[in-house]
Each structure stands twice: as C-alpha cells, then as structure tokens.
C-alpha cells in the first residue's frame, strides 16, 4: 500500500492525495504541466514537496511534520524514466546489474540476464544502450527498475518515446509485468487511452490537483467536468476475444474487424458511437448494437457528450439535434450503435 499526500511539489503547485493497493496500478493522467511528473518525483524523493507525507507499507519515506525525508536511494522505488535514462557507458546487462550491490559479483550477470530474458531482451545483454531500439531500451529500463526488487513501481510516460508499432507490444508487456510485480504502481501519462489500458484506476490531474478519480470507464461515462470529458477522449471496453467476436465483460458481444484471442481491451471514439431507439431494427451486419441507459448529457462545444450505462460504461458524442430527436435525458433507454471498423483491439 502506497500513500502519498503532497502539497506544493516542485515547480507546480501540486495538491494531491493518493493511495494505491498492492498489485494495483494508478494512472496519473492529464495534459502536460498538470503536475503528474512532480507527484512521481516527490514519491521517489527526487523533489521535495513543501508539505506532505509518503508512506509505503510500514515505511515512512517522507513526513514534513515529523522532519522525515529519506534520500531517493533509501526509498525502495523502481522508477522508469520517460527517456529511460539508461547509463550509456554500460552494456544492457550492467545497467540492470547496477542496483544489484547485495548480489555477489559472480552472480550479478546471471541475475541481470535472467531479468532481461523475462522481458524478452536476453540476447541484447551485451549491447550498449546506443545500439538498442526504442522498445529494447524501454525493456532494459524496466528490467533495471525491477532489479532492485522495489516496493513501488513508478512509470513516467513509459510508452511516450516509442513509435506506434512498438507501443502496442510494449503496452502488453508492461501490463503483464505490472501484474507479476505485485506492488503498488503509479503510472504517469498524457494519453487517456494508455491510462485506460494499463491502469486499474485513473486519476485525472489538472493544475496540480486530482480533479476526478475512478476506473477509465467511469471517467469516460460520468465525467465530473467538461475538462475530464474532453480529456478522456476514447471509450475503453474490456472483454475476451474469440476471433472477430469479443465477449464484453459483464455481458454482450461486439464484432471487430481484426481477429484476436484472449483478454483484450477495445477502444472506440465517442464520435463513432451513434444512438438509436432501443426497438429499432439492426441495420447492416457490420454494426454493433448494445442496449444502454443514458447516465449523463454534457454539452462540449458544439457537440453533446452522452454518458451511457451498459454492461460497461460507454460514451457517445452526438449532435444537439440528435439529443432533441431522441429526447435524450438521464434514465432513457437507447441502443449504442457503432461499426466494427471503428474499434481498436489491444491485448491486455
């Protein structure tokens, strides 16, 4: 269990309280300048908040009232930096072996290579960071953070420096690693879809404050403000894939364009979701229809965001005309309609 209460950390006026259970991942999401990284650095001890406390399990790392402020090296954190911050003058395995000072010298390489193998880059153990691809660098950085056997994992935009193709794969690997690590994890990202994919819970930060906290689905379906509604952007549904059919967790089925298997997350944009009267007949085989109940109706600019309660929360973005035509108001039964081709499937 990680608990942090922070006031005024770093250059941004942070005011954030957070608690993360073992084995859970909290995403701090928000636009740049929202104070996400400041919170992460304060937990790691790289920045000192004006006031606050950080505790991990029984260990108190920071308590300004009691004058406790442990140096970063005395806090058992595993941190993955945005640009990975590898030691360029050391080979990949030496990077991973860096925190292994308690391991006898003769066994360090073995242990480091083992960690690299677990992340699928065992064959790159002797390569200097300059010769690694972006995806490989990310894995080495992750292996190095895990090598310390941390009590908390801190990830600063771990996927931001990767290209789109590498990212899907890296995200799946990261999700699996977080599951295996069984420690509290805090992930910083400016991308809501990434937060939804990797984290159990998302805290949206703006101006150093947590403006809303919940599962990605809850935030998308019931944004507390237009800011959160705008930030959430995409809708995320989790389920299990069987070819082009996805069994949505909580009930219902949707058809996707690309076949997949196993646990997946599907994302779609609210503007790809249209609303229909529940009784209307299905039009075309490529269209998915999910029964839903309107939870909220929020005007965002010239469009209207409609939060929906279904098997999993959904969001549709429609025109004011459609709201009027369907008489959309909280509690109204509708059908959410979207094309198979509008869905993006990612392994979970």
């Amino acid at each position, binding site marked *: 269990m990680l608990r942090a209460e922070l006031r005024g950390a770093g250059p941004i006026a942070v005011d954030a309280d957070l608690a993360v259970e073992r084995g859970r991942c909290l995403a701090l999401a928000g636009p740049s300048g929202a104070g996400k990284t400041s919170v992460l650095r304060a937990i790691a001890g790289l920045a000192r908040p004006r006031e606050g406390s950080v505790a991990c399990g029984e260990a108190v790392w920071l308590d300004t009232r009691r004058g406790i402020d442990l*140096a*970063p*090296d005395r806090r058992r954190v595993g941190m993955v930096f945005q640009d990975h*911050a590898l*030691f360029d*003058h050391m080979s990949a395995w030496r990077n991973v072996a*860096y925190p292994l000072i308690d391991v006898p010298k003769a066994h360090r390489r073995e242990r480091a290579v083992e960690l690299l193998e677990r992340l699928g880059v065992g064959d790159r153990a002797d390569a200097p960071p300059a010769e690694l691809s972006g995806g490989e660098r990310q894995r080495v950085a992750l292996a190095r953070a895990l*090598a*310390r056997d941390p009590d908390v994992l801190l990830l600063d935009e771990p996927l931001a420096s990767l290209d789109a193709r590498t990212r899907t794969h890296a995200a799946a690997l990261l999700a699996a690693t977080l599951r295996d690590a069984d420690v509290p994890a805090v992930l910083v990202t400016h991308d809501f879809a990434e937060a939804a994919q990797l984290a159990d819970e998302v805290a949206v930060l703006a101006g150093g404050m947590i403006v809303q906290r919940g599962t990605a689905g809850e935030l998308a379906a019931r944004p507390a403000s237009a800011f959160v509604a705008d930030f959430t952007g995409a809708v995320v549904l989790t389920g299990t894939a069987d070819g082009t059919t996805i069994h949505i967790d909580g009930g219902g089925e949707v058809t996707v364009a690309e076949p997949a298997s196993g646990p997946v997350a599907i994302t779609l944009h609210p503007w790809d979701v249209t609303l229909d009267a529940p009784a209307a007949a299905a039009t075309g085989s490529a269209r998915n229809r999910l029964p839903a109940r309107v939870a909220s109706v929020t005007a965002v600019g010239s469009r209207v965001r409609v939060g929906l309660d279904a098997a999993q929360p959904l969001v549709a973005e429609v025109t004011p005309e459609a709201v009027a035509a369907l008489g959309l108001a909280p509690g109204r039964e509708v059908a959410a309609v979207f094309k198979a081709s509008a869905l993006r499937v990612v392994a979970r």
Partner: protein
Amino acid sequence: MTERLFPYAVAAATAVAVAFLALPVVAIFTHSSPGRLVSALGDASARDALRLSLETAAIAVAIVVLVGTPAAWLLATRRFPGRTLVITLVELPLVLPPAVAGLALLVAFGPDGLVGGGLEDAGIVLPLHTAAVVVALVFVAAPFHLRQAQAAFASLDPGPLEASRTLGAGPARTFLRVAVPAARGGLVTGAALALARALGEFGATLMFAGSLRGVTRTASLAIYDRFGTDIDGALALSAVLVAAAAALLVTVRLVGERRAAR
C-alpha cells in the same frame, strides 16, 4: 569586384596565418642537424631537466584531477550564495600574468608569506625545493581542468544521475559510477590541457621555486638557462616539448571527435 577577390583574400589570409604560426615550430627542428639535437639530449643536465618536468607535471596533474574533479562536480551541480565569486576566484590564475602568479605564491607560501611561516614551523620549506615546482604547476594548471570538468558535469543529462539515486546508489556512488564515466571526455580534455600548461610553465616556477639544477630547473627553465651559451641544447629540449605538446593536442582532438561521434 569584392565578390571576385574574396576567395583569394580568404586563401591568402589562411596561408599567412599557417605560415606564421608553423614557421617558428619548424625552425626548432631545422636550425641545427638532427644528430646534434639527439647528442644534446645525451647531456645529463638536459635529461635531469626533462625528467623533472615530466615528474612535477605528472604529480601536479594528478593532484589537480583528484582534488579538482570533485570540486568541479560541486560547483557544477550545487547552487549556493557566492557561487559565482568562488568560480571566478578559482579561474583567476588562468588570466594572471605568470610573474604575478610567482610573486603571489611567494608572498603566500614563501618563508615570510601569509601561511609560509606556519608551514616553516611545521618543517615544510617550499622555495628552492621540488615541491615548490609542483605547487606552482598546480596553481597555474588547475583552472584549466576545473573549467573543463565543470562544463562537462553541467552538461550531463540529469536523467541517469537521478536514475542512479532511485536505483539505491548514494551521491558518492552516483558520482563515481555515473557522473565521472559520463563526463570522461571533458575530464580527459581538462587533464590534457592542464598537463600541457604544466609542461610549459615558466614564470611562476622561476619566481617561486627558483632554478636549481635537478631540483627546480624544469625543461622550460633549462631552455632559458642555456639559450645564451648552448643553442643546440636549448633547441633539443624545445623539440621534445613541441613533440609532447603536439601529442597532447592530438589527444584532446581525438577525444573531442569520439565524443562528437557518439
């Protein structure tokens, strides 16, 4: 008209500059025959002077690197009141005329100097001893290394340094295992420049340490000592110093290129 002549003007200026700067160096090797240069080096006093130069310069640079590198790290990474003043003070010897430097050392560490009396009571007498040469060399050469090392440390990416701390390494291990290796290019350049300055040092050594054969008479002092009486001997020592300086320059250049290639 101007446009047409410009390429020729540039070429002519370059030719004049290269000729003027290279000619005296070439002259050292052509003024007398190579055989006479080599035989002049066989002279015991010449070898004494060269040995003394190399020894004192090596010791001075070792002191400069060992003390100067951590000091440069602190100056580059910490912000404290009076920091600019401290940096100016440690860089001052860089622009001090050598005669002034020698006099300053004498009134500081000499028998009647600021701390010289205390040193004398402790049994340490510097002037006319080899240790005085080392003191003079450290004084004039240290700023070269301090400047380079400071710049190298200041330009380090803070990411790996912070990563080191989050990986359980304290400030000392972070400095030795991450900062120094990452800044090694700048540190080598700084040490090479300090060594070049130490090998060429003349004025401060002469005024502070004197010119005793085998004790304080370094190669530069020996050249001055014999150029009135033994021009071949002076030239032979000069040739050796030119070769050493050229080797250092090439080292700095190569290190710089390797850094640029990364």
